[in-house]
C-alpha cells in the first residue's frame, strides 16, 4: 500500500514536471548599448542611412546610430502627403510606356561614387516590377530622373554602379522575349532572354541614358556588383534558374548543384558598342526628367536601344560556376575577391579576380552555356567558407579584412576573415535577416563601425499591431572583435538593400529653400502683385501666392462646373523649413506641399456647384488657421463674371 502510494506520488511528480523546456534564445543586450545609440537632443546622427522601401516604392532616410526616421523620399509611388505624382509638375515622373503607374517595388539603392568612394551626389534606386531606375539628388532629397528599361522584367540586379559612376546597371530577374512577340511560354529556351543593361551617367548633370544592353540566355539574374581597383572593368551578376525552368521554379530551378556568376567586361562591351558591333532595335521606353529651373517634370518616350550579343563580341562575357542559386554577389574593398552567396548552398565560395583573369588567359574552360564559355570552378576559386550557417544571402565588408554575411535560414550575421576564410563571430538576428549594410560596405573605403541587419520577420520584437507587423532593422556595433547588438527599430515598407554615408558628406550641401528669383516655372506669381486668375475657354489658371499667413487671391468667383481649374501656388517665403500646403474641399486628388520659393500646381475639376473653401495644410504661423479662402463654383452657363480678391482689407474697401 505504502509502495503504491509512493508510486502514485512519483507519477504525479513526473506529470507535474513533464516536458523539459526548450532553451530560449538569449536576447540580452549589453549595458552600454543605450549610450552607443543615444543621440542627445541638439546633436546630429553620424550617418545618413538610405533604406529601400520595398513594396511601398519609396526610399526612407534614417539617422544612424539613433535609428530615427528623418524622411520618406517619394520615388516610384504616388505620395498624397506632398502631392508627388498628383501635382501637375510631378505627374510625368511616374509615366511609362504603359501609362502612369502609381506604385512599384523598390529593392536596392546605390550611392554615387568617385574612385570607388562615396561622393554624396546622387542616390540611385531600382524599380523591380515595371523596370526603371531613378536618380535622387542629395542636395534636395528629390527624385530628379526616372528611366524605364525596355527588354527587361523583374529589374532586380539593379541599380548597382561602377566605381566612378560611369554606369548604373539593370539586370533581369525574369527572362522575357525581346520586343513584344507573342510566343508560347514553353518556348522559354529558344525565345526568352535575360538582359544586362548598362546605363551611362553624365559626370556633371547625372543624366542617365541606356548605352547598351547585353543579351544573355534565358535565366534569372539576381544581384550584381561592379569590380573595383584591379577588377574595375568588370561587372559581376549572380544567376539562378540556369535550369531554364518556367514553371514551379521553387523545385525546377533548384536542381543543379551549380548556377553561375556572370562576369561581364563592360570596358570591352563599351568598345564593341563604339565599334558598331551592336544591333540597334526599336524599343519604346519612357525617360522622365525633373527640371530644377522650371520645377516641372517632362516625360519623353525614347525609341531605340543598342543590343550586344556575346556571340559577336568575344571575350566580353564569362560564366563562373557558383554553388546553388547564388543570391548576393559582392566584391571586397580591394576588388580582388568576389563572394557568391549560394542561398541553397552549405558553403560560401570566394572567387579570386587574379585567378579568373589567369583562367581566361589559359582558356581553363569546362564547356559553354549557350555559347558563353564557362570557367572551371577550381581555376576561379580562391576558397570556400565552410559551414558558415544556413541560407547565405548578402555580404558586406568592414575594410579591415573581414566579411559579414547574412544567413536567412539560421537567422544570423556571420563574420569571417577574407584571408583564411575562417568564421570569426556570429550574431543572431531577430528574425530572418535579408540584406545587411555597413556604411560604404560595398565601396573601396567601408566605415566599419556599424552594421545594420534588415529583417523580414519581426514576430515578438515590438508591441503587436494586428496581423501585419513592421519589418525591423537591427544595429550592431562592429568596431570590436565581437559584433554587439545595440538597437532594434521598426522600419517603413520592406527594406531590402540600404546604403549609408557619413553625414558630413552631404549635410552641408543641403538646399534650404529655392531662390525665388531663379524660379522659372511657367506659372510662377512673382510677388502678390502678379497673383491673378486667367480664363481661356474652360481652363482657369489661378496664379496664387502663399506667405505667412494668407493666400492671394483668397476669393475667386466666375468659375463653372466642369471647368479645369489649375491652382499654381507659389510660396513666397525665403526661409528654411517654412513650407505651405494647399488643399481644396472635395478635391479627388491630393494636397500640395510647396517649399519656399517653389511653384506647385493642383488641378481641380469641380463637378458640383457650391462654395469650396481652400486652405494651407501645413501649420505655418500663429495665424495658420486664418490662411484660407473661398472658390465659388457656379452652374454651367450661369452669368457670373470672373472676379478674384487680392487681400483687400476693410480700410481699403472703405476708401474706395
Amino acid at each position, binding site marked *: 500500500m505504502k509502495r503504491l502510494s509512493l508510486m502514485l506520488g512519483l507519477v504525479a511528480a513526473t506529470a507535474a514536471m513533464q516536458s523539459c523546456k526548450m532553451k530560449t534564445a538569449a536576447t540580452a543586450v549589453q549595458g552600454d548599448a543605450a*549610450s*552607443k*545609440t*543615444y*543621440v*542627445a537632443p*541638439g*546633436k*546630429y*546622427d*553620424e550617418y545618413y542611412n538610405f533604406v529601400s522601401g520595398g513594396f511601398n516604392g519609396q526610399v526612407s532616410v534614417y539617422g544612424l*546610430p539613433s535609428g530615427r526616421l528623418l524622411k520618406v523620399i517619394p520615388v516610384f509611388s504616388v505620395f498624397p502627403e506632398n502631392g508627388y505624382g498628383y501635382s501637375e509638375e510631378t505627374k510625368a515622373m511616374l509615366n511609362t510606356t504603359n501609362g502612369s503607374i502609381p506604385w512599384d517595388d523598390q529593392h536596392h539603392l546605390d550611392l554615387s561614387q568617385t574612385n570607388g568612394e562615396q561622393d554624396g551626389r546622387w542616390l540611385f534606386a531600382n524599380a523591380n516590377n515595371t523596370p526603371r531606375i531613378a536618380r535622387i*539628388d542629395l*542636395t534636395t532629397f528629390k527624385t530628379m530622373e526616372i528611366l524605364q528599361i525596355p527588354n527587361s522584367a523583374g529589374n532586380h540586379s539593379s541599380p548597382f554602379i561602377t566605381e566612378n559612376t560611369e554606369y548604373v546597371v539593370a539586370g533581369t530577374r525574369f527572362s522575357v522575349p525581346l520586343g513584344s512577340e507573342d510566343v508560347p511560354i514553353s518556348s522559354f529556351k529558344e525565345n526568352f532572354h535575360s538582359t544586362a543593361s548598362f546605363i551611362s551617367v553624365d559626370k556633371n548633370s547625372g543624366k542617365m541614358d541606356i548605352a547598351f544592353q547585353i543579351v544573355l540566355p534565358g535565366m534569372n539574374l539576381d544581384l550584381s556588383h561592379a569590380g573595383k581597383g584591379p577588377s574595375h572593368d568588370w561587372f559581376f551578376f549572380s544567376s539562378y534558374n540556369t535550369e531554364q525552368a518556367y514553371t514551379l521554379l521553387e523545385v525546377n530551378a533548384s536542381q543543379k548543384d551549380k548556377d553561375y556568376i556572370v562576369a561581364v567586361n563592360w570596358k570591352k562591351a563599351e568598345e564593341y558598342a563604339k565599334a558598331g558591333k551592336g544591333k540597334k532595335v526599336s524599343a519604346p521606353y519612357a525617360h522622365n526628367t525633373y527640371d*530644377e529651373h522650371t520645377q516641372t517634370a517632362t516625360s519623353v518616350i525614347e525609341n531605340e536601344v543598342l543590343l550586344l550579343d556575346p556571340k559577336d563580341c568575344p571575350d566580353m562575357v564569362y560564366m563562373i560556376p557558383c554553388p546553388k542559386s547564388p543570391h548576393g554577389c559582392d566584391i571586397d574593398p580591394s576588388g580582388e575577391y568576389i563572394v557568391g552567396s549560394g542561398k541553397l548552398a552549405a558553403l560560401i565560395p570566394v572567387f579570386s579576380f587574379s585567378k579568373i583573369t589567369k583562367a581566361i588567359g589559359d582558356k581553363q574552360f569546362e564547356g559553354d552555356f549557350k555559347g558563353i564559355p564557362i570557367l572551371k570552378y577550381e581555376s576561379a576559386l580562391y576558397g570556400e567558407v565552410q559551414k558558415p550557417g544556413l541560407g547565405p544571402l548578402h555580404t558586406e565588408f568592414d575594410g579591415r579584412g573581414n566579411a559579414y554575411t547574412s544567413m536567412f535560414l539560421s537567422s544570423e550575421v556571420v563574420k569571417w576573415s577574407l584571408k583564411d576564410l575562417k568564421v570569426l563571430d556570429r550574431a543572431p538576428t531577430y528574425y530572418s535577416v535579408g540584406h545587411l549594410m555597413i556604411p560604404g560596405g560595398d565601396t573601396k573605403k567601408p566605415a566599419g*563601425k556599424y552594421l545594420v541587419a534588415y529583417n523580414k520577420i519581426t514576430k515578438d520584437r515590438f508591441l503587436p499591431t494586428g496581423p501585419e507587423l513592421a519589418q525591423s532593422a537591427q544595429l550592431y556595433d562592429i568596431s570590436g572583435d565581437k559584433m554587439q547588438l545595440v538597437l532594434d527599430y521598426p522600419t517603413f515598407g520592406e527594406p531590402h538593400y540600404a546604403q549609408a554615408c557619413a*553625414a*558630413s558628406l552631404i549635410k552641408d*550641401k543641403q*538646399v*534650404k*529653400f*529655392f*531662390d*525665388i*528669383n*531663379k524660379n522659372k516655372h511657367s506659372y510662377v506669381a*512673382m*510677388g*502678390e*502683385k*502678379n497673383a491673378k486668375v486667367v480664363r481661356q475657354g474652360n481652363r482657369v489658371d489661378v496664379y496664387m*501666392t502663399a*506667405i*505667412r*499667413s*494668407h493666400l*492671394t487671391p483668397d476669393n475667386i468667383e466666375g468659375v463653372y462646373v466642369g471647368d479645369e481649374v489649375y491652382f499654381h501656388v507659389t510660396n*513666397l*517665403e*525665403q*526661409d528654411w523649413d*517654412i513650407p505651405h500646403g494647399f488643399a481644396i474641399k472635395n478635391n479627388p486628388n491630393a494636397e500640395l506641399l510647396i517649399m519656399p520659393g517653389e511653384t506647385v500646381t493642383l488641378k481641380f475639376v469641380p463637378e458640383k456647384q457650391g462654395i469650396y473653401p481652400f486652405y494651407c495644410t501645413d501649420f505655418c*504661423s*500663429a*495665424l495658420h488657421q486664418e490662411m484660407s479662402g473661398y472658390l465659388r463654383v457656379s452652374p454651367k452657363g450661369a452669368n457670373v463674371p470672373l472676379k478674384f480678391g487680392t*487681400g483687400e*482689407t476693410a*480700410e*481699403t474697401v472703405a476708401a474706395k
Partner: protein
Amino acid sequence: MKKQAMFLTAIAAVALLVYSCGSGTPPPAADAPAADSSMTAPAQASSQTPTDETKGMGKFAEVKLTDPLDQTMVTSGKSTYEVKCAACHKLSGEKLVGPGWKGVTERRKPEWIMNFVTNTDEMIDKDPAAQAMLQECMVRMPNQHLTDDEARHLLEYMRANDGKK
C-alpha cells in the same frame, strides 16, 4: 543647382565673416561628451552688436546714405519689394500682416532697418522695438534672405516711398 550652391556659399561666407567675436549665448548642446557618434548642431553665431541700441543688432553699424537718391537702387529695391515683401507690407501706413511702410525711415534708423531685414531672427528675439512689433502683429517676420545689396536697395526704395529726393 550650381548657382544656388554658390549663393548659399556666399551667404555662408558672409556669415563666417560676421562671426568674428562670438560671445554671450552659451551653446545649446550640453558640454558633457556624449556618445562619440554624434556631431553638434552648429550653434547660432551671435553677431556683433552695434553700440547704439537704436541701430538694432547685426552687421550694419554705419550705413552711408545717398543724396540725392540713387534711382537704380530705387528701381532694384522696388522689384525686391514686390517679390519678397509686398505680400505683408503696404506702402501706405496701413497694416496688412506687418506694418505699412509709410514713415518707416523716420521711425527707424537706416542701420536698424538694414539689420532687421537681414538679421531678422536675432532681432525679433532680442531687439525691444522688433519685439514690440511682434506683439502687435502676432506673426514673426520671416527671414527673406536678402543679400546686403538687396537690403540696401530696399532701404533706398523705402526712402523714396517716404518722399526723399
